[in-house]
């Protein structure tokens, strides 16, 4: 009699535990999409049971729990992706835009081509109503580090002032300087490299 009761209890506990397991069972679906430039990247989805790669536009895998292998990738129809994920994709912000402005050697004077790029930067700032604009100054490796750190700061300040002169609020502009430490083109020390004499403007 006593044993029967214990068995009943055990059965009940078993049912409750499996019930909890079922309700607690989560599922993750991952869908790869083409990049804004049309290229298709690659994702690897892994857990304790193994891993799969997805590398085609619209390819998806589903994972039901940590101990179960991600499902064999399959390509979802475009309409299904739009119906299920159209909303979250519509709220994806536009990626920040980068501009590079170049300077004459050893100076804080912009090259004529770079001067003519300023209107495009302003247009982008206004279009995006951006309140986060980074202005990052760089130099080539000609001259010593200390000199270049100062020069890169002066270059960033010059560009910051140009933007402020066109009505962009100071509060929205963050100027930093990297000296010769972060070249676009890697060179030995004391090399004149026009492509490294630059200020990068990032409009977010």
């Amino acid at each position, binding site marked *: 009699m006593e044993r029967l009761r214990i068995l009943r209890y055990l059965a009940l506990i078993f049912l409750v535990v499996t019930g909890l397991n079922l309700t607690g069972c*989560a599922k993750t679906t991952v869908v*790869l999409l*083409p990049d804004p430039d049309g290229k298709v990247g690659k*994702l690897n989805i892994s857990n304790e049971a193994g891993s799969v790669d997805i590398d085609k536009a619209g390819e998806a895998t589903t994972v039901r729990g940590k101990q179960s292998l991600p499902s064999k990738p399959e390509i979802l129809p475009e309409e299904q992706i739009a119906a299920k994920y159209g*909303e*979250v994709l519509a*709220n*994806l912000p536009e*990626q920040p835009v980068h501009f590079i402005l170049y300077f004459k050697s050893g100076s804080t004077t912009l090259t004529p081509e770079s001067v003519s790029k300023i209107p495009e930067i302003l247009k982008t700032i206004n279009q995006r109503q951006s309140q986060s604009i980074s202005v990052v100054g760089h130099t080539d490796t000609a001259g010593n580090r200390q000199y270049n750190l100062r020069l890169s700061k002066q270059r960033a300040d010059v560009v910051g002032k140009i933007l402020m002169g066109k009505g962009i609020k100071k509060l929205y502009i963050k100027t930093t300087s990297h000296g010769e430490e972060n070249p676009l083109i890697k060179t030995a020390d004391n090399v004149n490299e026009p492509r490294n004499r630059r200020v990068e403007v990032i409009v977010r």
Partner: protein
Amino acid sequence: MMKFFSVLSLIFFMFIAANPCLAKIESIGFIDNVQGEVLIISGETSVQGVPNMKILPGDLIRTGSNSSVGLIMEDDTVLSLGPKSEIEIQEFLFDPAERNLSFVAKMIRGTFSFITGQIAKLAPRKVKLETPDATLAVRGTKFVVEID
């Protein structure tokens, strides 16, 4: 006596310099767009998200029903959360000059879309996005994740 004070003030300044709480915490991103109820939870405080609000490392972002939020991160990563979604930005380091790069986030529930940025480009191994069921390694760049 003078010497004693100068040593004391030196110790005091060393203490200030070494105290991480007094260091300025740099923001790692900001809110681009918000609909409905969006909470930004930093430690013990939680506030309703509004456009241009800064995101800090460790922040938890949670949306209510019929709500959504879009974020822009320092490395050009953009992401959005659909309704009833929750993500914790556990680690975000973007300092290419010093080669300090990492992006670790935990998606707890809901729907997400991503376009990953420069961290994934420069150091793909340093990007780790987790869901309750799996870990995503990203080699580029646009994708959707749904947890249900």
